[in-house]
């Protein structure tokens, strides 16, 4: 009885695939059953989840092909490989076959117009996908970008692509706040900050040109400390980024900031980027309590003074230190209508809020209206950490790091702590 139902669903699903219309998508029956405990996640009503795979190492960003198979970019090699290709052979939603390739580690990965793009901490590669969504020439990718700076700190080169043949690369600042001595108490900021020439911003390159260097790229936006999350909004044709704000205000400038101030400052921020934008790092940060830009203490600030230069104000502010590691605009039809064209953010979770408990370790949803964030946000998927209150990072089970949308509109979340891949589905009534 059970068997014949799933067989029926499978057939229905295949039939549905061949009609492939976007408008029909939401009627596609879901054959995939969630885990009985929703993979340990707390979700809004009507949503459910399963663990697609586990022990995939330091799973950073992920991409899902049209077949629903998953590419995972690893920050450390697993069995000698930097990319994992996870296939679900029996269509139960769980991975049966794991193949690795790629001899480099990194964070960024994306599928765009028939190519798989992936980054190391210095370069970006691409692989042609066949009509099964597979990489055929695994050991011979095209190197499209090379020579990007990697000084260990904030080295992740997250990527996204637009529909005009461009790729956008986060080049994080290899510093906390451009102090002469990084993270040293009282050390003042370099002025002008020399890091901004080659990092602390988003660079734009061509998606199909080989061996591009800084000389071929455009510094698309600057003053961004480290935007591990970035996504192209195809509805408005704009780049959106989520920034990790600076750390350690209390340790570095205890005369102006106590522990509580540090725990709550500065805001983590989201920006809609226009070419040439400057978001102010390292000279200024956004204070979400005073609701304005504040001059950084490394540049003469005292926690109150505003900067004299004008910088871009964030479009959204979130609590401090939560580490927005991935941004994804939801364009699917599986979730209820309010989610469409809104943004999901994977918050990796903080480490720099002591003595307050650490925060984040969840996926948040930001509703958008007319292509702009509404200013409101909500926790969407929680429970990754596996503990009620996080006082020590060692106690944390999973840390959300990457997001991807599946062909059926499911949301995938990667965890770079234990290497789990989660899939979140909506099975309630529309």
């Amino acid at each position, binding site marked *: 009885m059970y068997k014949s139902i799933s067989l029926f669903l499978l057939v229905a699903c295949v039939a549905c695939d061949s009609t492939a219309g976007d408008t029909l998508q939401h009627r596609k029956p879901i054959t995939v059953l969630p885990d009985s405990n929703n993979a340990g996640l707390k979700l809004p009503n009507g949503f459910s989840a399963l663990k697609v795979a586990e022990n995939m190492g330091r799973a950073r960003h992920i991409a899902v092909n049209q077949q629903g198979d998953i590419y995972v970019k690893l920050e450390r090699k697993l069995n000698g490989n930097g990319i994992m290709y996870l296939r679900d052979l029996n269509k139960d939603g769980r991975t049966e076959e794991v193949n690795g390739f790629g001899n480099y580690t990194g964070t960024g990965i994306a599928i765009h117009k028939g190519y798989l793009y992936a980054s190391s901490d210095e370069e970006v590669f691409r692989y042609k996908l066949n009509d099964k969504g597979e990489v055929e020439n695994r050991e011979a990718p095209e190197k499209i970008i090379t020579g990007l700076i990697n000084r260990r700190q904030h080295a992740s080169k997250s990527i996204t692509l637009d529909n005009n043949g461009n790729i956008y690369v986060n080049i994080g600042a290899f510093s906390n706040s451009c102090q002469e*001595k990084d993270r040293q108490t009282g050390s003042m900021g370099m002025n002008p900050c020399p890091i901004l020439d080659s990092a602390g911003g988003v660079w734009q390159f061509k998606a199909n040109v080989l061996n591009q260097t800084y000389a071929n790229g455009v510094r698309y936006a600057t003053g961004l400390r480290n935007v591990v999350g970035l996504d192209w909004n195809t509805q408005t044709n704009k780049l959106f980024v989520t920034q990790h704000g600076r750390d350690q205000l209390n340790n570095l400038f205890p005369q102006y900031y106590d522990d509580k101030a540090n725990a709550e400052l500065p805001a983590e921020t989201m920006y809609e980027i226009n070419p040439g934008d400057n978001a102010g790092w390292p000279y200024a940060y956004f204070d979400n309590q005073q609701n304005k830009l504040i001059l950084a203490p490394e540049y003469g600030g005292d926690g109150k003074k505003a900067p004299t230069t004008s910088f871009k104000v964030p479009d959204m502010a979130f609590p401090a230190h939560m580490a927005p590691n991935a941004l994804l605009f939801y364009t699917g039809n599986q979730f209820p209508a309010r989610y469409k064209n809104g943004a999901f953010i994977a918050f990796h979770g903080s*480490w720099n809020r002591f003595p307050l408990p650490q925060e984040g370790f969840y996926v948040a949803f930001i509703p958008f209206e007319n292509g702009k964030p509404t200013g409101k946000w909500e926790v969407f998927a929680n429970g990754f950490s596996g503990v009620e209150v996080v*006082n020590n*990072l060692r106690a944390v089970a999973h840390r959300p790091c990457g997001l991807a949308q599946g062909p059926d509109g499911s949301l995938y979340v990667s965890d*770079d702590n234990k290497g789990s891949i989660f899939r979140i589905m909506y099975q309630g009534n529309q």
Partner: protein
Amino acid sequence: MKRNMIERIANCYSAFLLTGTLLLSFTAKGQTTTLEASMQRGKTIYVQRCVACHQPDGGGVPHMNPPLDGASAVKGKDKFRLIQVIVKGMTDRVEIDGEFYSNNMAPHADLTDQQVADVLTYIRNNWSNKAGAVTPAEVKAARAKLK
């Protein structure tokens, strides 16, 4: 809301302090050791300077800041190298007990010999660690070589 926050801070602090207090009550029996006093001072420095990165339980932040609890170098014999890490900082990409870490540790050169000795004695004898104390004289000698 505000009260809740204060309570949470207090809880967090007290959980953290408990570890140290338990340890102290062990050694306090009978002997008022210099170790005990050094640990107490070391804890204060740890909270001011180190806890953000290495965390209250000494467990570190995965892939970013290394754990001190259980770390072979922290428990090890090479006190010179530990003094060097505190006084000169550490930014080289090296493997620590099988893992790499991405953050930079700044030098804490402004700490006195006594303070460096105290904080090292603290991390060598807190959590599950148990190793010999570091003395101000050792720090002084190491610093002379590090110049």
